[in-house]
């Protein structure tokens, strides 16, 4: 790999041992994947599972980075942290986050702040065409597909190395030719394309079929950015998908020809309602016991999405013994709690939180409208209206 004089100096240890290790990490990974050089980035985002008991090794490395007194060069955010407002409700769960306080303290010292899986709803929102080093599969797919900035799926720690160096290796989705669509997906006429539950289920199917190829979706020009966020998160769970061209939405995909860079799709796949019902059955876990927890907001909800849920909750009451979690970033949470919408939260008994509903091991049975949560946890997968009905009734039976 070509390194300029400054990069070479860092690599050979002239700027300290730790910086050399970080440089070696991104150079070694870059070389394996054919990068010929490094490229400047404008933004980074890391995932460290906020100090759960299984990130000891990673937390140790971050502590060493902090001890070396290194700071990030570009705006760098991290995935959600725990929410102490609910320490009573989650007293059984929080002891698992043994590394949390130390990790947050280390991250803040390194200059990393803003804790959410949707950092683009904060001020970490790069511009079209900018190069970034993001982790968090659902955020990377949003960055590439909705914003049109460019990032590979970096890994936790690698992203921090990139943030500190202000660089990543130039390969994969940083190059225009690697952003070419591979597969064309369409929804058959029997699928309601305005139903979010259909779109997220479709996301699960697309990830399964695409694997690590680049899907192109025709017929979702009307979809909102939030809907694409939820669809993409599903595809990034069942597959290694990091970019979906949604024709008419993705800045680089004004039409099918452009998305495929004038080439032909390898395959054209039509998704039917039968396919959607099948994938729901495949990933949803049905529980006979009544639910203990319902979670909405994986990935974290936008402000608009929170308000949609609150509107639906108006005049309703969550049954006793059930926690109904609405997950978003701390800024949106604080704003809502201090607005007239707080009445709906108080009256309904729903909880607005900034934790991650996926990593917070919410006691089961768990019901969710998130395809991603459903894929990674043994949760029941329902649409938002069903989730609210079940929460009101206190049982999943009619």
């Amino acid at each position, binding site marked *: 790999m070509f390194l300029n004089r400054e990069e070479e100096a860092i690599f050979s240890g002239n700027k300290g041992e730790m910086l050399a290790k970080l440089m070696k990490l991104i150079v070694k*990974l870059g070389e*394996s994947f054919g990068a010929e050089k490094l490229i400047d980035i404008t933004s980074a985002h890391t995932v460290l599972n906020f100090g759960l008991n299984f990130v000891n090794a990673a937390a140790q490395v971050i502590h060493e980075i902090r001890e070396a007194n290194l700071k990030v060069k570009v705006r760098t955010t991290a995935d959600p942290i725990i929410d102490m407002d609910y320490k009573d409700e989650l007293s059984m769960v929080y002891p698992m986050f043994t590394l949390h306080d130390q990790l947050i303290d280390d991250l803040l010292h390194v200059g990393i702040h803003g804790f959410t899986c949707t950092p683009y709803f904060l001020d970490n929102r790069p511009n079209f065409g900018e190069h970034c080093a993001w982790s968090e599969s659902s955020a990377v797919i949003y960055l590439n597909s909705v914003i049109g900035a460019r990032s590979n799926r970096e890994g936790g720690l690698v992203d921090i190395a990139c943030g500190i160096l202000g660089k990543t290796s130039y390969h994969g989705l940083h190059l225009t030719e690697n952003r070419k669509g591979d597969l064309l997906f369409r929804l058959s006429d029997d699928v309601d394309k305005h139903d979010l539950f259909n779109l997220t289920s479709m996301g699960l199917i697309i990830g399964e079929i695409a694997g*690590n190829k680049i899907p192109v979706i025709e017929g979702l020009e009307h979809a909102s950015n939030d809907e694409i966020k939820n669809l993409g998160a599903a595809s990034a769970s069942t597959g290694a998908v990091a970019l979906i061209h949604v024709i008419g939405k993705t800045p680089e995909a004004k039409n099918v020809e452009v998305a495929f860079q004038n080439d032909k799709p390898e395959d054209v796949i039509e998704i039917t309602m039968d396919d959607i019902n099948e994938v729901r059955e495949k990933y949803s876990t049905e529980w006979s016991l009544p639910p203990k927890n319902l979670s909405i907001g994986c990935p974290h909800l936008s402000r608009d999405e929170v308000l949609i849920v609150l509107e639906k909750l108006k005049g309703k009451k969550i049954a006793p013994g059930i926690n109904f979690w609405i997950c978003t970033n701390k800024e949106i949470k604080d704003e809502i709690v201090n607005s007239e919408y707080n009445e709906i939260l108080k009256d309904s008994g729903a909880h607005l939180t900034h934790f991650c509903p996926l990593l917070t091991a919410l006691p089961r049975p768990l019901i969710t409208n998130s395809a991603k949560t459903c894929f990674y946890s043994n949760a029941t997968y329902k649409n938002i209206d069903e989730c609210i009905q079940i929460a009101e009734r206190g049982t999943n039976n009619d």
Partner: protein
Amino acid sequence: MTKILKGRGLSEGIVEGEAVVTSQPFSISAAFTFPLIQFSKKLKVADRTHELYKKNVSNKVLIFPYPIGTTTLGFVLLETIHRGIAPKAIVCERGEPLMSSGAVISDIFFGLKFPIVDQIDFEKLKQIPNGTLVHVNGNEGYIEIIE
């Protein structure tokens, strides 16, 4: 009789172990996070959608077509290596940087080698019977099937 399959070394290390082969793409996060949370001494695959569900892959040479799944993959793999419950090596057709990062970080920061070899045609890999002794050389990027 031995048979050498040439590929690419994504991370350094030279090991030998019994093959566990699956034709299903493999989600390291979905498979390994739960045993780590449980502080398990084994590494039983916890992904209930996977054919290797409940199979202990600790100390095996794990062979699959390509990795899938969420971004935690790298440090989940790192943690299994750090705790000494990881597979011995990973061999696949198409690797990706996320998976490599766990092994490369382990080498750079902890001096623990975990070889990953990719770019071997899965049509060849899937013919390796489970339990076959496989030699994995991540430094030079090849595997050797020992019969």
